[in-house]
């Protein structure tokens, strides 16, 4: 049909190409400058330079490996949280959901004496289920996701402790290091490779892999287009036929999946899980995404940005230790560095837009 119309309808000639008249040239470099994650990249560079200058141990390869590891556990979740946030929603339950997943796998394997992979499978179901419930509640009730996921956060926080206590009699899961399948699972989720003095952790590799996948999905698939659209204007997206509800549920389940993944890392890295952990991390994930340029109101942002955001946090947190700054002031420095990174970011963006 469009062909029919297209051939039939006349195409009025543009009188003098507008582009030629009104659009100045923009070099490739400048285009790059105005990308959303560029500002945060400069922020990261500034933070890196600060610590590189003041902290001698920060310059070693082994330090970089520690920094990368610290960033990766935040960063993995930040990828999923960024996708969700671009889609216009929050997930405050993401922090404790990680622990829920680890606890489920740990207790399931231990109580039923199964291979740990079976436990991991059960945990995956639970994690995806949590995401699904979040999404369903959201679309059924139209209550803001802040409230839905805050309720979920509190409930999971309670369940983590209460169920662990009920099942194991204590508030931590049993050590599963000697169970079937532990070694292979440990290799997948918590391996460590030493490459010429540089310790590369599995989570770091996965972090980059998932970042690449997330970027691909966001920029090069239909679903990615829909994520931007529902975050930018849900009603308009619905009006042109985007399956808004399915995408939202999918995004929550993506967060669920990533929570499972990070939970498995926690379990197989540390062998047991403290049921009270995870609280407060949800803010770090959101922070990483926002530092990386995601809008809290949705519809704008990138996965790479979230990765950079997590890296800024990891560098700051560990850099302060390497710098040997008075530890009483640690939170102050974290806040100050964050502010620095954010201000640099804002400044860079204004500059880029001026051109």
């Amino acid at each position: 049909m469009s062909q029919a119309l297209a051939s039939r309808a006349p195409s009025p000639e543009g009188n003098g190409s507008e582009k030629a008249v009104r659009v100045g040239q923009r070099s490739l470099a400048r285009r790059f400058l105005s990308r959303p994650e560029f500002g945060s990249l400069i922020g990261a560079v500034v933070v890196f330079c600060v610590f590189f200058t003041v902290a001698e141990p920060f310059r070693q390869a082994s330090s970089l490996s520690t920094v990368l590891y610290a960033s990766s556990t935040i960063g993995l979740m930040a990828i999923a949280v960024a996708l969700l946030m671009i889609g216009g929603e929050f997930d405050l339950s993401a922090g404790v959901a990680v622990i829920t997943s680890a606890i489920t796998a740990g207790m399931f394997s231990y109580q039923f004496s199964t291979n740990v992979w079976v436990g991991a499978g059960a945990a995956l179901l639970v994690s995806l289920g949590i995401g699904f419930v979040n999404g369903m509640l959201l679309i059924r009730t139209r209550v803001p996701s802040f409230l839905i996921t805050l309720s979920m956060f509190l409930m999971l926080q309670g369940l983590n402790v209460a169920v662990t206590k009920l099942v194991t009699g204590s508030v931590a899961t049993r050590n599963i290091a000697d169970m079937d399948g532990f070694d292979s699972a440990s290799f997948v989720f918590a391996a460590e490779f030493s490459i010429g003095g540089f310790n590369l952790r599995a989570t770091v590799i996965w972090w980059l892999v998932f970042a690449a996948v997330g970027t691909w999905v966001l920029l090069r698939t239909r679903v990615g287009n829909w994520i931007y659209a529902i975050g930018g204007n849900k009603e308009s997206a619905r009006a042109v036929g985007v399956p808004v509800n399915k995408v939202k549920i999918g995004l929550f389940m993506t967060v669920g999946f990533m929570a499972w993944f990070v939970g498995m890392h926690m379990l197989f890295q540390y062998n047991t899980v403290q049921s009270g952990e995870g609280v407060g991390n949800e803010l770090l994930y959101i922070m990483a995404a926002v530092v990386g340029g995601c809008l809290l109101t949705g519809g704008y942002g990138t996965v790479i940005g979230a990765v950079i955001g997590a890296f800024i946090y990891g560098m700051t947190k560990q850099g302060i230790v390497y710098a040997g700054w008075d530890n009483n002031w640690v939170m102050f420095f974290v806040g100050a560095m964050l502010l620095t990174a954010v201000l640099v970011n804002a400044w860079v963006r204004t500059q880029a837009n001026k051109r």
Partner: protein
Amino acid sequence: SEEGGQQEEGGGDVETPDMTIAMITHQAEGDTFWDIVRAGAEDAAAKSNITLEYSANPEAGEQATLIRNAVDQDVDGIAVTLAKPDALQDAIDTAKDADIPVVGLNAGIEQWEEAGLQQYFGADETVAGEAFGERLNEVDAQKALCVIHEQGHVALEERCSSLEETFDGDSETLYVDGASMPDVSSGITARLQEDEDVDYVATLGAPFAMTALDAVEEAGSDAAVATFDTNRELVGALESGDVEWAIDQQPYLQGYLAVDGLWLYNTNGNVSGGGQPVLTGPEFIDQDNIDEVAEYAEEGTR
């Protein structure tokens, strides 16, 4: 508690009067140490036909409100941790005005009398910290790293500062986020990479000792690890000598004695301690005596 299984188990055989006792601590959610305190309290309650109302909040104001809740419920006794005595004073006075006996446990060895508590069961953090410092002297430690997993937490700060007090070598503190094991792990690793002189890492909770072991290895340091408090997981590490020692203040005993003390007072007018605190520690657990406690740790009572 009403849901707790223990109460039904024990309740049947005992002919003593029913009573309700509230235990209000400054526990943070899901902490292994407090889990053991509570286990002790529940066992004592079950044995004596007591309904135990356990509640906790790390914020002083909230803890005070919980004490008022208990007064509103007209319980027969209150056991409270006196982590922030000034903040709780008002609420404690309310309880005393309502003729409810109040005992202290775990924290507040200096202030419990002044605050008007009837009895006190515990080992002060100061005592524990000082003992830790002396033990470090014994093993000839040069530089210790005290890892605080919750910044601004009174009891934890107390442990580190009293450790510093008695320890002859250098001692430094490191703040990490206890809610996130990767943060604990990388924090300690980073610090050990930064400062290669550290030869002892002191953690303030058993789970963090296990993580510290990883971190030490990761950093390629040869620092030893020792800790405050125990739990099930720590047994293996103590047995193998990976964790050199744990300083135990017998949390089970604190919970148990506090409830039992209230019961004794209510049924027989007894007051323990004779105006002095009833000390539950500190006690060192290491490779030599771990066998004695291993079994109980497995059950979650040590």
